[in-house]
């Protein structure tokens, strides 16, 4: 499986003709002097470094800040394609929220025999103390990222749901800013849907979910970050800044008088909505991990008593589980009464003996993932792995089959990136960002396109050397 022949390319069809979405862009590209792109490429790198748009990587020695490589060639989606995608995304996100509500209430889906109860019991992301509690506004997933891949003109699949704490939205915004600064003429020629009001929409969406204890006036919203050494700190600061919210750490917060309050220069001030970018495990040392210094002792009690809104709600992480993912088609149908508009990638649950046997027989062709894993860690990509890697993985799989799912190695679509030798196709995916509030579901047109930079590679994660592109949804 390698880039080039056989894959769907976003820009060119199999005869080498430019697809409609890219025609205006390619015309513009053809008119540019040859050294422009080379110059702009360096300029982009300098901009990102100077502005400090970095993420931290934990290597063997110390934390190192790196840039996520930015590719200057946009990924372009037509208005028509986007309409279809957004209907499917909205349906899925609606189902996810209903599913989470049900899991923590009557569990109708388990009673109906559509989801094995075992999947809840054995899942670390399941929070027993959320049972019977309804978060403010009934919203569990205030912010969701749905990872999509494409294999053909109309073949989009959902690869993963990110309902825990999806990241990357700052890159969506900064990539656009960078493109507009570098190529202003491009945006005056081509009408592209704007993404820049995402922070305002996020702020409004969060403010619409105030807790019962809210006393009126302007809701106080804060972003909870693990701190400046966290890999996504730039994004936490960026979002707080753009929303006009406070950026707080666990050590700034304390429970005072039944509210979670932050230590300001004038004393303690209550927070209404906490957009937390720390995992459930670290949220409350009294309830979860007692070693955690990132969270706030007692916050879960305040939450359950209606003193604060936590976004996303604790316990939503269970829907990111890849074994749960394999049930998403049933989940969508169960809660919406509709067929899923966006299909899942075919998935074998290794907990099931027949599937396990099939997976073991076909390891060299499959992608195997840990059910609780993320970030491209702990997975096997059969076609690009050595015999030794495969046989080592086989043992892990046999030892704990219920920890794994397997999927076919998809012929992910490609899109050209700019290289020193000109344009070259690379595999990519797409993560649109979805906001959920009592006012409705709000999808920002586009999202984050992640692209593998190595020829033929199917791994797009930034932690594994992937890059990003600006993502355009064309206006009609």
């Amino acid at each position, binding site marked *: 499986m390698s880039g080039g022949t056989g894959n769907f390319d976003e820009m060119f069809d199999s005869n080498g003709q430019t697809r409609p979405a890219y025609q205006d862009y390619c015309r513009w590209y053809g008119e540019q002097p040859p050294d422009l792109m080379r110059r702009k490429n360096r300029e982009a790198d300098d901009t990102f470094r100077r502005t400090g748009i970095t993420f931290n990587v934990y290597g063997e020695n110390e934390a190192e800040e790196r840039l996520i490589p930015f590719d200057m060639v946009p990924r372009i989606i037509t208005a028509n394609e986007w309409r279809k995608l957004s209907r499917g995304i909205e349906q899925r996100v609606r189902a996810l929220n209903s599913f989470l509500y049900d899991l923590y209430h009557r569990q109708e889906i388990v009673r109906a025999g559509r989801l094995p109860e075992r999947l809840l019991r054995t899942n670390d992301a399941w929070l027993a103390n959320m049972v019977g509690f309804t978060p403010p506004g009934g919203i569990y997933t205030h912010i969701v990222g749905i990872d999509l891949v494409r294999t053909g003109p109309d073949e989009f699949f959902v690869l993963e749901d990110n309902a825990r704490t999806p990241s990357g939205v700052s890159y969506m915004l900064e990539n656009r800013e960078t493109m507009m600064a570098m190529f202003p003429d491009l945006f005056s020629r081509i009408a592209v849907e704007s993404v820049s009001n995402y922070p305002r929409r996020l702020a409004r969406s969060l403010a619409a979910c105030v807790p019962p204890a809210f006393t009126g006036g302007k809701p106080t919203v804060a972003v909870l970050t693990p701190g400046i050494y966290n890999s996504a700190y730039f994004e936490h600061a960026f979002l707080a800044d753009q929303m006009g919210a406070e950026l707080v750490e666990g050590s*700034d917060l304390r429970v005072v008088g039944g509210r979670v309050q932050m230590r300001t220069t004038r004393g303690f001030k209550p927070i209404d909505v906490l957009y937390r970018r720390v995992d459930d495990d670290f949220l409350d040392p009294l309830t979860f991990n007692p070693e955690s210094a990132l969270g706030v002792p007692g916050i879960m009690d305040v939450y359950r008593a209606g003193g604060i809104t936590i976004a996303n709600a604790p316990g939503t992480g269970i829907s990111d589980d890849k074994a749960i993912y394999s049930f998403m088609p049933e989940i969508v149908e169960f809660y919406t009464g509709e067929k899923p508009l966006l299909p899942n990638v075919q998935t074998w649950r290794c907990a099931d003996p027949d599937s396990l046997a099939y997976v073991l027989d076909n390891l060299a062709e499959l992608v195997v993932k840990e059910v609780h894993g993320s970030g491209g860690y702990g997975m096997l990509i059969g076609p690009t792995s050595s015999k030794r890697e495969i046989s080592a993985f086989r043992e892990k799989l046999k030892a704990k089959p219920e920890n794994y799912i397997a999927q076919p190695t998809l012929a992910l679509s490609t899109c050209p990136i700019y290289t020193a030798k000109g344009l070259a196709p690379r595999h990519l995916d797409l993560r649109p960002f979805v906001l959920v509030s009592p006012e409705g579901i709000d999808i920002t047109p586009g999202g984050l396109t992640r692209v593998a930079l190595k020829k033929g590679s199917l791994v797009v994660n930034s932690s594994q050397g992937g890059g990003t592109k600006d993502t355009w949804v064309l206006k009609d």
Partner: protein
Amino acid sequence: MLGRTANSLFWMFRYLERAENTARLLEAALRMALTRDIVAAEAEWRSVIATLGLQGQYEAAHDGYDGVSVWNFVLRAPGNPGNVRAMFGAVRSNARAARINISSDVWEAVNANWMKLDTLLARPVGPTAVGEVLGAIRRAGTQVHGAFDGSILRDEGYHFSRAGTFIERADSTARILDMKYFLLLPSLSYVGSSLDTGQWEQVLRSVAGARVYAWLNAGQIEARGIVEFLVLDDRFPRSLAFCRNALRENLAALARMHGAEGQAASLMRDADTRISSLTVDQIFDQGLHEFLVDFLARNAAIAQAIAQDYRFLA
């Protein structure tokens, strides 16, 4: 504003000021050493290390005092955790922590200068490069202050930042004076001969005051005048009087914004009554060294009170 953020702004500007002052001190010593014989040069480098309070750490790593060893120790040695490279790291990490309370202009000035200095200081600095490196450190301060002045909202964050700057600057000027106070005592200066004006000029250079002093005094240089200038002249931005006045205004503004005065403001008043009506003769009568030791202690107490008044720490 969060107490932690106020703390970050305060220390971001303290470290920025400290890096700049350290560069000036090294520049003055470098110039002095170039015009002296080897014994005098060694004494000069020794006094740099003493002014910075690094004797113990330095002597654990080096047998003698020479320029290359001293400036590398001060600028970048891992054996000196308070080296200038680390100061700039602290400027940047405090700026990052307070990222949403500073403007993009300030952040970019900090980040761009940090990238430059961190690279310059990644390798030993040789005699041909040291001038460029020290210049780059000073310019970093200038650029951050410039961006700050033109883009920062005049809210409490502004006053915490400025308070950090003036606390640190007063501390630095007082330390430099104290290290050389024996050169400036009237009894010795009248003896004349062996101590030439070069030493005095060096003190002025360390605080970027040589040119202004010469202009104000028609080129005539004398010890009393230098002490008066660096302690009492409230027109010179690195004098103790100037730093006190500025800090008093910052504390007054904070008190207005918060609707109440803190402990720092009353410590400030006590300190003020001691310095405001002083003459240079009275300082010499009381003892320059004793005066400076008292000043440094009060300055440190005010800094501590600010941290407490405004809940810098949990």
